């Protein structure tokens, strides 16, 4: 997936054109600003063109005693030397000042445009990530995606500001100055252009290499970033195993590789800049040589030659600036490619063209001969048939890795089954919009995800619920008591991933979050695995009330949680092994009854002395 140096193909010209076209697409909404910026840059250039004139006048007219140029006659006709001098000094100030003003506005506008583009691109990428399926996210590293969202999107600005803009203004200048210069001396003007072919040659030859190196170097940086991100996220583990040195050594080797790549890139870049500089120097020398000869031949005035030369500087300036920044430009381009690569991925769970919103449902769930496998192809579900009537509570049991969580995620349409179908109230999930489906199905995930923010926001999770509702949900999840004891109650900010809470407290927050939603179908994946039996007992008492009338699937390993359900479903080997109520299954004397006997004291009594000890 990650391009290595050998496998990496430098992009074809068509790709380049496509990339530029796409970048420009992001420029389109901000066209007025951008064009304003370009226009002002042009004005600035124009002022640059005029700037040498006052000095030339002073030298030629005031000191040299030549006649005033014709176009100045009407203005300064009768003015003495002192006056002309004052006029020249004043116009220098005015020219530089307005040149400055043009720069202010141009710079501001272009930066503004760039920032807007970055903003658009970043939001687009972020929004796209929200749409991509879990199948995609399973294979990604948070750090890598984060790098794309936060760093790579900057490239849009970089590419426009360091690449497109100077090149565009260089092209404008080239045209304008060529016209002016050709007016003086066609031969000289043509000579000024002789640098173009070798420049083109140099750019096409070397820039491909630079681009390839920039891509590889960016990938290395991103990989390093992802590595660091996950290591720092797991710092507790690293420390518990005394693995700090090992982790640092790994980071160091990644970092060394990245450094080597980046230095290589910069040396190629300097070589390139050197070549371009040399070509330009040859161009300048050729012009001076030829220009001087023309002056000697009397075909060109000395003042004209100096103007020529000073234009040359302005002309070559942008070219030089691009060549000196080519590494950054290429790197920007590589970054943009990384952004577009993700933007180009089609979400594989998405609304079908004919998808309609799911109407309010009663909660009649059916799995019909469902087959499912993750990417590695090993079947996880191999023909599951399960019907859950509205309002029924089903406990899903099975050994670890049996596919319980997988079954639950099919109902939330995180994935689509490869064969068979899942329906709610007769609607195939693939025929309804994902959003309307998930609004009616609540899934409490097996792993608890908590954010570095207040308890309240963790429970509400962006939904506009009142404080009272949040509190009630917390009470139902038996979380209210411990929350009230925290220093700021519901406003206490918890650590990332809930690291300032105990395991059971984290679980209850996640449960409260699920209970706050009032969807007709609720899936709870191991909601009480980290709770003591006494607390669990009380949680179930509330949750049972709350779920009354709703369709519920509870996944559990603890039979104490499971036995309450209307029906217990035992999943193993991707199929349903047994199902029925607690008593029916006990009577059948199958796997469930065996499990039940090994649980508690075997007579249906649950850890009596423990319950007694901790409920005091």
């Amino acid at each position, binding site marked *: 997936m990650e391009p290595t140096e050998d496998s990496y193909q430098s992009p074809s010209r068509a790709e380049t054109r496509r990339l530029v076209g796409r970048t420009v697409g992001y420029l389109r909404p901000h066209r007025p600003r951008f064009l304003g910026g370009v226009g002002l840059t042009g004005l600035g250039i124009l002022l640059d063109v005029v700037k040498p004139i006052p000095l030339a006048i002073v030298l030629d007219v005031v000191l040299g005693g030549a006649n005033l140029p014709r176009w100045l006659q009407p203005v300064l006709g009768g003015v003495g030397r002192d006056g002309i*001098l004052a006029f020249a000094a004043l116009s220098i100030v005015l020219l530089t000042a307005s040149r*400055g003003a043009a720069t202010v506005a141009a*710079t501001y506008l272009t930066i503004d445009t760039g920032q807007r583009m970055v903003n658009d691109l970043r939001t687009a990428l972020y929004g796209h*990530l929200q749409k991509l399926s879990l199948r995609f996210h*399973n294979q990604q590293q948070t750090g890598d995606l984060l790098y794309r969202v936060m760093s790579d999107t900057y490239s849009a600005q970089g590419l426009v*500001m360091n690449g497109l803009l100077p090149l565009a203004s260089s092209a404008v200048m080239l045209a304008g100055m060529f016209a002016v210069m050709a007016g003086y001396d066609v031969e000289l003007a043509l000579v000024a252009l002789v640098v173009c072919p070798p420049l083109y040659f140099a750019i096409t030859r070397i820039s491909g290499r630079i681009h390839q190196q920039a891509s590889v170097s960016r990938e290395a940086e991103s990989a390093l970033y992802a590595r660091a991100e996950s290591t720092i996220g797991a710092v*507790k*583990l690293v420390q518990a195993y005394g693995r700090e040195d090992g982790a640092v050594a790994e980071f160091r080797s990644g970092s060394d590789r990245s450094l080597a790549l980046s230095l290589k890139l910069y040396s190629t870049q300097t070589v390139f800049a050197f070549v371009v500089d040399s070509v330009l120097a040859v161009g300048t020398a050729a012009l001076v040589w030829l220009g001087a000869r023309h002056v000697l031949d009397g075909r060109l005035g000395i003042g004209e030659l100096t103007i020529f030369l000073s234009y040359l500087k302005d002309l070559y300036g942008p070219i030089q600036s691009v060549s000196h920044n080519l590494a950054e430009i290429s790197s920007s381009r590589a970054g943009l490619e990384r952004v577009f690569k993700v933007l180009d991925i089609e979400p594989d769970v998405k609304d079908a063209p004919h998808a309609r919103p799911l109407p309010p449902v009663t909660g009649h769930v059916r799995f019909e001969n469902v087959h499912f496998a993750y990417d590695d192809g090993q079947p996880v579900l191999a023909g599951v048939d399960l019907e859950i009537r509205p309002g029924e509570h089903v406990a899903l049991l099975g050994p670890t*890795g049996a596919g319980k969580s997988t079954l639950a995620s099919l109902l939330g349409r995180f994935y689509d089954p490869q064969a068979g179908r899942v329906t709610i109230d007769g609607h195939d999930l693939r025929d309804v919009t994902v959003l309307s489906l998930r609004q009616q199905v609540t899934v409490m995930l097996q792993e608890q995800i908590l954010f570095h923010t207040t308890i309240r926001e963790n429970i509400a999770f962006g939904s506009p619920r009142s404080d009272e509702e949040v509190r009630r949900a917390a009470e139902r999840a038996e979380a209210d008591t411990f929350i009230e004891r925290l220093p700021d109650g519901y406003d206490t900010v918890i650590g990332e991933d809930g690291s300032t809470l105990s395991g059971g407290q984290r679980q209850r927050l996640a449960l409260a979050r699920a209970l706050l939603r009032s969807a007709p179908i609720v899936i709870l994946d191991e909601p009480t695995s980290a709770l003591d039996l006494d607390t669990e007992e009380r949680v179930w008492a509330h949750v049972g009330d709350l779920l009354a009338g709703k369709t519920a699937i509870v996944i559990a390993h603890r039979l104490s949680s499971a036995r309450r359900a209307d029906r217990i479903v035992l999943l193993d080997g991707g199929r349903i092994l047994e199902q029925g109520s607690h008593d029916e299954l006990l009577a059948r004397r199958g796997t469930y009854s065996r499990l039940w006997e090994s649980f508690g004291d075997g007579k249906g009594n649950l850890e009596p002395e423990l319950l007694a000890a901790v409920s005091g």
Partner: protein
Amino acid sequence: MPRLVRHILESLEKEPSPRLIAISCAAILGLAAGDSILFFFTRRILIGASRDVEFEMREDLFAHLLRLPPRWHRKSRVGDVMSRAVNDLSAVRMMIGPGIMQAANTIVVGTIAVTLMALASPTLTLVALAILPFVAVATQVMGKVTHRRFTAIQEFFSEISASAQENISGVRLVRAFAREATEERRFDAKNREFRRRNLGLARLNALYFPMLQALVGVGFAGVLWVGGRKILAGELTVPRYVEFNLYLMELVWPAIALGWVVNLWQRGSASWNRMAELWAAEPLAVESAEGPLPGGPLEVKDLTFAYDSGPPVLRNISLTVEPGTTVALVGRTGSGKSTLLNLLLRLEEPPFGTIRLGGRDLRDTPLPLLRRALVAVPQETFLFSDTLGNNIAIGRPGATPAQVERAALEAGLGPDLATFPKGLETIVGERGITLSGGQKQRTALARALLTDAPYLVLDDAFSSVDTETEERILEAVKARSGTRTVFLVSHRLSTIQHADVVVVLEKGRVAGDGNARGASPGRRPLRGAGRATAPLRRSRGGVAVADHLPEDEAQGRGFDRGILRRLLSLAVPYRGYAGGALVVLFLESVAQLAGPLLTGAAIDLVFSSKESPRKGAPPSWGGSSSGSGSSLAAPALSTPSPASTSSRSSRRSGSCS
């Protein structure tokens, strides 16, 4: 050098013109080439060195972060830390690389040019330098504002990356709750705010640089005015004036680059302060890893502990664990079980004198040794996106595949491995998302089992594993453990049955302990024991209040000399480089200054040899126009200094960090 130039000029005077032209062209080429080569080396050396320093700093920072206590990490957000380590660091690199290069360039070129100017005409020099105080004031103001705004920008960027990081790593939850649209809106709003702040800074910079240019323009006009009058009055010769103008031209870019340097420096120092906050946190001491592994009985005596400044979580805990016993730690959720285990592992620091291992205070036991002796499966499972085998081998890097496999089998992963096409080589997604809950937990268990540590701590390590599998694993573990001491936290009787001793924690106290298997409701009234323990509230005197975060101290600190010293110390290994770079830089500046001089003079001579020889006032046409020629051509013929190109691009990309 001027003498050299004059020498050349004198010899040139006698030559016929075409040859002169050729020579001057050659001179242009030679100088440009020389300049390019020097420029090449300066960049290579300085940019290379600054990259080196950046990477070095980043590695140091990473190592530092890994050594910060968990207490610190709980308060921080990964996204924020990463943003400081990457984003702020690159601003610092800009400060030490291009920043220093530009500063040095400015100083060298500036000093030489001003000296030469003063030699040419002291009065004009004064006129030209009259703008300096204004430049200084403007720069000062801009620097201050830049510093403040840039700090705010970087903070906001951190905030955005931290929340994006949380969103991406919590993608399942966002999906499950259909919050995508809300999240996207929030992100967009934050980005808009970020852009707004950025533009604030951009506006400032956009104003500053043109202002500087305008000031320079005023300087030029002043020189033109005063100089022109002097020439008219016969107090100044045209060649001198031209020479002076030439030097003044060379000063333009350094002056503007100076603003750029200040800008870079302020950004860098704002970022440096943010990084310094990370550095200011006190890391765990690095202790020697030599010596025998600690062993023997584990005694906890009157342990009272509180997180930060909160209420005590553990109160007056006392217990003794003989080697080889299996201790079950049970209690209601939130009763302090994990806290006690974290203290045993010294992931939290226990107060002195409260925990002893083999007779030695835990605080005196070197951490590396302790961590080798005590191995834990934490309550929350951490997995890396790496192969299953590598995830298991973390605790023992040199382990052979056979050993890894045995640990995996012991942890009950056998049946699962059989279904993974690649077995132990299977890549598990980030945080193990491609595994089931129980598979994750057992991977973490296998990791602990691989280490063969004499003390094993299992914090609710079977909560996602079915009871049958759990039973099998515990049997296997016990069969192989021999004299291993095991701490088990669990809410399940099935687990606790395997313990020799049960310790019940209740609201931070030991409520009672006994033999789990022997204990039956009649024989051992645990409830009574719980009630009988010491009075509930005790003074907070003995509570170990964790020291306040050093982070707070760092916040108020400005960009002080300590930081500078630290920066310099980082540069020490590159002393040689830096010296070389300075020499090269000096040469480059000389070349830069000589280029226009030579060309100008050459052109001058070409035409003065054609026309009347110039001698004093009134100035001849040839002399004057040659002056204009050289002064105008000057910037054209020398390769633009790094200042010109980079400051140009810096103004364009402005606030792009």
